[in-house]
């Protein structure tokens, strides 16, 4: 799926201008578009779809309230991505303090031959993501979990591709080490 690059953002800019021109109901189209585009990213950062829904709701409301401050309406995607990411980090931090111990306890004795359930993988990956800094976590999710191209991630994070590749390698080392300890 493409991201906030020029093609899609052209359509975003048209919508943003309509909203700023008074067609406030057109905001629903932007919401639909970015729930689809960033929904899985938000879930990964927040650990949970329900928490991600809360974070996305807050991000969309904040974006709406600040829409008139957006200098280039064609860049709504990348701009909203930053707002959403901040909300996701806030919600993830809040959530962490409520997670019961039994859901983060590490279970051992797994072998590659055993079938992994999604729940087991979720527990292990969530714990590994906790070891990453926010920047590394964002990049790791975008690249390794969602498989987005480096060019798209570079546009989203306003970072060069070479730096992103190093960031991904560093994140993979940390995640691999966490999974190895968990095994």
């Amino acid at each position, binding site marked *: 799926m493409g991201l906030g690059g020029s093609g899609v953002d052209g359509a975003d800019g048209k919508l943003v201008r309509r909203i700023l021109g008074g067609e406030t109901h*057109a*905001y*629903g189209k932007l919401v639909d578009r970015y*729930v689809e585009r960033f929904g899985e990213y938000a879930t990964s950062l927040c650990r949970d779809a329900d928490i991600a829904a809360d974070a996305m709701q807050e991000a969309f409301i904040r974006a709406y309230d600040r829409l008139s401050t957006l200098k280039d309406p064609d860049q709504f995607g990348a701009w909203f991505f930053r707002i959403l990411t901040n909300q996701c980090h806030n919600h993830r931090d809040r959530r962490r303090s409520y997670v019961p111990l039994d859901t983060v306890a590490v279970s051992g004795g797994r072998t590659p031959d055993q079938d992994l359930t999604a729940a087991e*993988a979720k527990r292990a990956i969530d714990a590994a993501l906790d070891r990453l800094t926010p920047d590394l976590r964002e990049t790791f999710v975008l690249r390794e979990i969602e498989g987005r191209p480096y060019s798209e991630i570079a546009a989203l994070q306003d970072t060069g591709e070479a730096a992103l590749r190093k960031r991904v390698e560093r994140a993979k080392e940390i995640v691999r080490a966490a999974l190895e300890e968990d095994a």
Partner: protein
Amino acid sequence: MTEHDDTRYERMLAAYRDGLRPPGDEVRQRVMTELAGRRQGAAERAWWRWFVQPHTVRVRPMLAAAALVIVVGLSASVSQLLVDGNGAAIPDGTVLVQFELEFPQAETVALAGSFNDWNDSATQFTRHEGSGVWSVTIPLPPGRHEYLFVVNGEQWVPDPRAHAAVDDGFGNLNSMIVVGPRGVVRS
């Protein structure tokens, strides 16, 4: 890094992706409901402000007489509307209300309002054969409803025959209709 590590890493990520569940349509609904609530609140404040603020009224006898004739005519129209069934009550307490728009150039026309969370595609008009007139009839509960027509999926236009227009809280106007228990009420 061993082959075992790589395999486990890839299998873990694959299983994690399989179980990933993104938020659904509830986000749109929650966001648009919150924004609609703000509009409603702002409109209601404007609505009630009109009643509590003083107004200067200038009366010209000839115009007052003409206005009286119009009011009588409107009352007759409302009575006719109820008899014709355009606003006939249906069993569950809602009232059938017909919305109509003449827009020959339109490809599609939809109705979005406070009664359908301002959904711009849920309530589609039907074009009258051989004319540029579009209409749709929907049940509405008694009360005050704000709405707009959505032409060709993107152009939001007020109802030129609306009973009233109210501030949407953002400097624009929504059309408004008042539905009473026995039919449409002219405001």
